[in-house]
């Protein structure tokens, strides 16, 4: 079926509508604050070959990583039946880190699956060493239950044995059960909408336009890259390891015609810390950076990724092999990969790329036991400064790059958990100075009302987010412990601690880097 310039635009709305509605359903029926308040999930539509057609993305790190889940599901199921739902979180077989549980299910036209719908949600606990499942681990097995791509539903029937096995391995089974049901509800809606669309417009037309949309996005992405100068642009950035060492990410962006290749040759090997990433996460970061530089509002689908190649040495920090620890790679290393990639691209298109943002998600998990004896696991991330860009100050107190989750309202979390927020504010002068100023970081202070286990995975505590073109770096982040007597101790960027009633934790997140010389700032 040839591409009609008008129907194409119509189908863009149709597919986007399906993914968007799946997302709304997941949000509204979810149970954990992480899903319903923070929107830490994505939903997508794939074609039969596993190419992404549309995505309702709140979380850029899912962008390039969801296709890997779909591919893993496709290769694990020989014969699909209506009502099948595959579930997976194994980072080395379609996942990115264990808390992100992905579901994939087929949509049939006649006897064959012609589409797949998928949802990925960050579950607040999947077992492992510490509550919240973002531990200071050294291998995958410490990070929680590993679910290979298997069917949680067969022919529409829940495999209860499997669900029981999963739930027995997590700290908060009821919440997990509710969140998994919410994911399933989102799939039912996605399937229903696609079926209706095919019924009304004919399967052939719907499939043809799924294909056209991918080509369309590829065409636009290539047109944009074609305008960038050919050449090789290099950048190196560092991760802060728990033992005080650094792990370097080296990238060379090779622009040739309408294609771009990110080559990570020279990047440090796998580390004995939860900071490794699988290839899909690295690809996500690269796709995200390229997507940010598009001038046009391009539908996000497999076509956007086609002109982008990602090459990484085997078993390195950003292309790890089983059983490397990856819990924090998805949330922290992904940010640094983005910084490195944008640092390289800034040399190619200097008028479009700005300074580094806070470069961390400040992942905080707090776990313990509630008054009624039930265990709890709370997860949140904290915003910080966005990097200044040519033409704009960085925003203050927001998530940058690979995340865009919301905060949990203080009045919601204090109702549920045994700690209290005593301060939530922007930090003055924490954004890097410049003609355009970096955004300000956040200070958030927690007072513990019970003994709890706290795990923190944060970055940019030793190296400040860099400025660009003469702009100053942003202020580094700090993690402070204040005991009942008021004594302050600085904690490292990554730690697990048991805190007592009366202890306070103060997290100061990094500011964004500034752009261009401050003396040229207009007043």
């Amino acid at each position, binding site marked *: 079926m040839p591409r009609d310039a008008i129907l194409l635009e119509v189908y863009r709305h149709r597919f986007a509508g399906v993914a968007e509605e799946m997302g709304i359903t997941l949000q509204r029926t979810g149970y954990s604050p992480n899903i319903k308040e923070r929107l830490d999930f994505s939903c997508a539509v794939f074609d039969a070959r596993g190419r992404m057609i549309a995505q309702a993305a709140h979380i850029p790190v899912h962008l390039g990583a969801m296709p890997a889940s779909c591919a893993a599901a496709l290769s694990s199921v020989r014969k699909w039946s209506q009502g099948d739902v595959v579930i997976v979180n194994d980072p080395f077989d379609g996942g990115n880190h264990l808390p992100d549980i992905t579901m994939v299910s087929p949509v049939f036209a006649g006897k064959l699956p012609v589409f797949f719908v998928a949802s990925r949600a960050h579950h607040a606990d999947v077992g492992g060493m510490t509550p919240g499942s973002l531990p200071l681990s050294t291998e995958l097995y410490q990070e929680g239950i590993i679910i290979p791509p298997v069917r949680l539903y067969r022919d529409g029937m829940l495999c209860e044995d499997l669900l029981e096995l999963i739930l027995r391995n997590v700290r908060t089974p009821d919440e997990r059960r509710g969140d998994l049901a919410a994911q399933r509800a989102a799939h039912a809606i996605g399937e229903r909408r696609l079926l209706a669309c095919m019924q009304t417009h004919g399967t052939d037309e719907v499939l043809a336009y799924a294909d056209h949309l991918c080509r369309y996005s590829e065409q636009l992405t290539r047109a944009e890259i074609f305008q960038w100068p050919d050449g090789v642009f290099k950048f190196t950035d560092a991760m802060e390891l728990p033992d005080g060492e650094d792990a370097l990410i080296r990238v060379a962006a090779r622009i040739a015609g309408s294609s771009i290749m990110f080559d990570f040759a020279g990047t440090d090997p796998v580390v004995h810390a939860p900071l490794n990433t699988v290839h899909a996460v690295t690809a996500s970061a690269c796709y995200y950076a390229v997507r940010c530089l598009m001038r046009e509002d391009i539908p996000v689908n497999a076509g956007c990724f086609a002109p982008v190649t990602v090459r990484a040495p085997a078993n390195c920090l950003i292309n790890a092999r089983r059983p490397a620890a990856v819990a924090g790679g998805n949330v922290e290393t992904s940010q640094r990969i983005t910084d490195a990639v944008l640092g390289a691209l800034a040399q190619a298109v200097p008028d479009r790329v700005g300074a580094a943002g806070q470069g961390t998600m400040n992942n905080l998990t707090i776990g313990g036991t509630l008054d009624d004896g039930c265990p709890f696991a709370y997860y949140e991330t904290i915003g910080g400064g966005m990097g200044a860009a040519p033409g704009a100050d960085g925003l203050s107190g927001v998530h940058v790059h690979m995340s865009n989750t919301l905060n949990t*309202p203080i009045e919601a979390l204090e109702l549920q958990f045994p700690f209290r927020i005593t301060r939530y504010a922007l930090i003055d002068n924490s954004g890097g100075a410049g003609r355009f100023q970096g955004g300000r970081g956040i200070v958030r202070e927690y007072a513990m009302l019970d003994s709890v286990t706290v795990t923190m995975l944060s970055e940019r505590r030793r190296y400040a987010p860099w400025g660009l073109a003469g702009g100053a770096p942003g202020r580094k982040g700090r993690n402070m412990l204040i005991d009942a007597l008021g004594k302050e101790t600085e904690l490292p960027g990554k730690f697990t601690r048991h805190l007592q009633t009366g202890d306070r934790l103060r997290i100061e997140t990094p500011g964004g880097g500034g752009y261009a010389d401050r003396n040229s700032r207009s007043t």
Partner: protein
Amino acid sequence: MSPGRILVGIDVGGTFTDFVLFRDGQVRIHKTATTIGDQSQAIIEGLELLQTAAADAIIHGTTVATNALLERRGARTALITTEGFADVLSIGRQNRPQLYALAQPPRSHLIPRQHRFEVTERLNSAGKVLTPLNEQELENIAVQIAEADIESIALCLLFSFLNDTHERQISQWFAKRMPEVHQTLSVDVLPEYREFERTATTVINAYVQPLVSRYLVTLSRALSGQTLWIMQSNGGTLAAEQAARLGARMVLSGPAGGVVGAMGLARQSEISEAPHLITLDMGGTSTDVALCPGHIPQTSESTICDLPLRLPSIQIQTVGAGGGSMAHVNRAGVLRVGPESAGADPGPVCYNQGGISPTVTDANLVLGRLRPDYFLGGSRSRPLDEAAAHSALANLGCRLSLSAEETALGIIRIANATMERALRRVSVEQGYDPRSYTLVPFGGAGPLHACDLSEALDIRSILVPRHPGILSAMGLLMADVSTDTSQAIIRPLAEIIRQPDLLGERVQELKRQVAARLPTRRTDCRIAASLDLRYTGQSYEITSPMPLPVTATGLEQTLRGFHEAHHLRYGHSNAELPVECVTLRIQASHPGARFAQPAADANPTDLADAQVYTQSIWLADEGALEVPCYDRGRLQAGHSFVGPALVVQYDTTVAVNPRWQARIDPWGNILLDYGADHAA
């Protein structure tokens, strides 16, 4: 409605101020240019031109509050909040507005940091005082507020929705110390949990309230004693002196009149007492869509100026497609429409005011769906320039290898796809089947697109109001007088059912509050109660009606309604899961006006007399069709015809597609039915 009463509806829009005068069963209409600086000027002038005796009631829809926000012309406002949380307003939910943009425009918070003050005090999540209020700090804040020339204070403390003591204490202190400064308390505006949303809503009210209050005082004075009612965002009206205190409640009232008007028309044209409607208000830059399943649906989740506004408003979906939406061909050779709009200036190419990019209006013109000489009844000084529109479309078409007409059809199709998505969002995506709904198109361009959109959604009946251009002003006359309030009650529903009397007491208390805002002399006051419920552990609630008085049986019924609504919206429910109550809502209202059926025309005419032209129009790819073109003014009750046809009138054009049967009802509305017998 009692005979002899004079009612005037006045709706202020961006370009025109519309007047609808109702007297002795007769409706008179007047349009005048809106006076931007002071809306009351056009109102006074318009009323003089109408030369009416003193009205019994003037019902007014105003954009004073909305514009103050959009143009950032509100009062100099300060915020007083709990120590440690002055930045809650600027951090918001800590997400960035655009996912994939390295440079983003700054967010606006209405109140700069130096005017946000903290006081030492803290409640815990049970509403118990952890740190008592330190009144001595207020002195210092008062000095700074005076120095900064603050006109309005927003007060929002953490967990105040559980215990209002500290907020009221501060309020009393400032009322004594600086009585001239306006105050808004979060516990009065929105006693519900979620600190950012509550703070933002309180701040919005504080920001617009002085302006709204001044405007209404001026207007009331000029109207010398005539009763003035103001349209609220929830589709109800409120006496001006009440409305003046709650400015935030009229911020989203702009599109409310149209929805109320559509429901009013559908009720009186006997579609049903509880009509199932989808309204489609298509203007120049955007289209508003609402689904009314027998009643007007409300939501408390709205956003204005990047800030959440958690007050009841009519649930409306807005999309950026309107008559002025501009078309262009992008680098991949694909036709796109909007969201950029040509607005009123330069306007579409056919206005001949310098517009270059063809718009949806230009496309309609080239396809023959608009008559160049009939547009807005020729109230524009020149007819539309069809040749200019044609050549702009031909130019664009060159890049697509399409003719001007084919390009125009494409533009319509894409604009329709955008609107269709909005229609789907309010219908199928909420679990409502559009096939059992009637579409009510209004605004300048709605009736042109109504048949196409209905066909896409399988909607089988359409009601085109007699005066689609002034439906909002008509709606003002039909709106209920209504007000509402809410109170956070976070408890398991099972517990409430065990002791319904406790809830009953709260209901009585809130009933007294809302009833006090209504006129005392009317006796036909209706009180409706509802609970926001959710499965324990979820974060999003469904507002479920609750019968009064509060009884265990009634609450069981509310619970069943919740499960059903959850199933309808999300495709699943579970009667075994525990359900939690979050908020109690009480609404009080008096019914609005109803119009009597106009007397049948004494001299019925032939349909042929109403036909003014034959017009060549494009409705689909097949090419041009010769269709009859009727003058709306000459169509009479009982007339009926089958599409394709056009109906023209001064403020809109109705495109009747093939297979649609049109008939005129006693009120002059056009009712369209799909798949009608062609023999008719």
